[in-house]
């Protein structure tokens, strides 16, 4: 793949993750964007283009909320673009940021991701049901959780994975989240497997502590060309690879036990990064974890282990923060919160901070040179992957 510019990440910003924020979506965007610019030592007028990620308009109840949020994201009188692939949007926005700079069109791009889910009453889950087929599925009284529970059970059945092993993902991520300064109240914690499996059954095999919460928050990141990076920082973090891929929306016609679209997205990013053996070459991973099983599912799709092998790595402690392959050292969506698009960009920001050695209490034990952030969404059909390196 040919492109004009190498692209570096030079700053990131994050608001607190909250069940219900006093700030409006615009205000959340502004706070995160300003923090990212401050971190990069840049002024708003240095920004040449803005990329915005935000999930369904129905959450905010504002149609075309990309435009609504533009002012808060610094998009005033600038080339501005909204990225939207459902849950995959946060990482997709970083990919769009990369394109803007790699193409040679822009030297400095601000990427902002926002979600304000609390506006939707009584619960944003009802608004989510519109993702299901209106002829075949909605008349059955569907609920967003069904598709995940069906996928989780399929994954458990094919590989003979006990619910208890999957619960270890929640235990790990919720514990990691205790060290995250932005974690949502009541979301991180020290939980036993028994507590997680024994928590309220939502849609079996998914229990309350195996699903991420509803969250308001924003995240932001500054991406620049090599020319600008060399001028403003001694510690650029380079975008080594990007990849994305979409599967069919006929989800009942796919075998849900394995996310092939994540594999294709990963292969695209690895090819670009020159990575031939991801298991050796990737040092730290932020896999998308809106549900406990998804982290394992995604590790397999990312080719970080064989199919069905992720639970064993988890069980052996390999994916702990002090393990050989730390996964979700931030705490992830299960441990910090899940403001859909902002959660994806938070993962990219976490890899940025890990590679700079600036993750504080969340810093992984092993030395890290290459990290990966991944998100997933739409109708369980899109994979988005960014590989960063120093």
């Amino acid at each position, binding site marked *: 793949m040919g492109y004009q510019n190498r692209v570096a990440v030079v*700053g*990131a910003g994050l*608001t*607190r*993750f*909250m*069940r*219900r*924020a*006093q*700030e409006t979506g615009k205000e959340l965007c502004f*706070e*995160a964007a300003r923090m990212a610019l401050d*971190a990069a030592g840049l002024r708003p007028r240095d920004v040449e283009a803005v990329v915005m990620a935000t999930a369904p308009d129905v959450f905010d*109840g504002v149609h075309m909320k990309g435009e609504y949020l533009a002012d808060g994201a610094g998009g005033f009188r600038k080339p501005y673009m909204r990225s939207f692939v459902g849950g995959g949007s946060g990482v997709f926005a970083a990919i769009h940021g990369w394109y803007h700079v790699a193409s040679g069109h822009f030297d400095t791009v601000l990427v902002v991701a926002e979600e304000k889910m609390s506006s939707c009453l*009584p*619960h944003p*889950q*009802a608004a989510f*049901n519109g993702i299901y087929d*209106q*002829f*075949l*599925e909605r*008349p*059955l*009284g*569907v*609920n967003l*959780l*069904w598709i995940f*529970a*069906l*996928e*989780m*059970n*399929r994954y458990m*059945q094919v590989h003979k994975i006990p619910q208890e092993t999957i619960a270890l993902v929640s235990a790990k991520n919720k514990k990691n989240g205790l060290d995250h*300064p*932005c974690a*949502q*109240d009541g979301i991180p914690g020290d939980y036993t497997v028994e507590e997680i499996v024994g928590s*309220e*059954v*939502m*849609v*079996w*095999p*998914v229990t309350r502590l195996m699903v991420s919460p509803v969250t*308001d928050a924003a995240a932001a990141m500054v991406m620049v060309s090599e020319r600008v990076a060399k001028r403003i920082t001694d510690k650029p973090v380079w975008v080594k690879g990007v990849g994305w891929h979409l599967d*069919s929306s*006929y989800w*009942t*016609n*796919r075998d*849900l036990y394995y996310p092939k679209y994540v594999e294709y997205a990963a292969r695209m990013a690895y090819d670009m990064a020159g990575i031939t053996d991801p298991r050796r070459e990737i040092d730290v991973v932020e896999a998308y974890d809106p549900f406990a099983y998804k982290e394992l599912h995604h590790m397999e799709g990312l080719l970080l282990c064989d199919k069905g092998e992720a639970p064993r790595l988890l069980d052996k402690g390999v994916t702990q923060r002090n393990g050989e392959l730390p996964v979700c050292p931030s705490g992830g969506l299960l441990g910090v919160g899940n403001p859909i698009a902002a959660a994806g960009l938070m993962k990219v920001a976490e890899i940025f*901070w890990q590679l700079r050695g*600036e993750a*504080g209490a*969340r810093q992984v034990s092993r030395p890290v040179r290459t990290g990966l952030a991944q998100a997933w969404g739409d109708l369980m059909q899109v994979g988005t992957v960014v590989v960063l390196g120093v």
Partner: protein
Amino acid sequence: MSVHIHDYPGVPLKDRDIGDGRVLTTEWHVKAQYAWDTGAALSKFFRGLKEGKIYGRWCPGCDRVMVPPRMFCEWCFRPTVRWVEVGDTGRVNTFSVSYVNWDASRSAVPRVPAVVELDGASPGMGIMHLLGGVGDTLEEILGRVKVGMPVQAVWKPPAERQGAITDILYFAPRPGGEE
């Protein structure tokens, strides 16, 4: 810069902040209605359900009998060419047990969503529906339902059918279908 930041922005609200009027809110109620035409493929499919039949659609490119039916094959990206009646029997591909209603409220009696692979459709061609007659508690349901279990559609009485997916009430374990 995470390590250099000590004060992250954002003010979390509690329910009482709104209840006590410390924070003001504005409400808006949307009432949107839609009517969707069922299109070429699903019109035939739904007319079939009214007659107690399930139709799939065959693609000569990949030799798949597809359910739900479509007029084009997304793999081969060419028109499908023939209707094929498939069985109202099949096997459970995966299932779950739902205590949550469509609007996130709790339900006392769980429902059992499943992906059912119909006999006569190509392998892996499932549809989402509900299982019934498998118990009322999690223990009962997990004791009775297994992935791979043979099931059969339980239909609404012909006079009550509307040409909708709900013309099938649910799929029930197929008597004598154990293997």
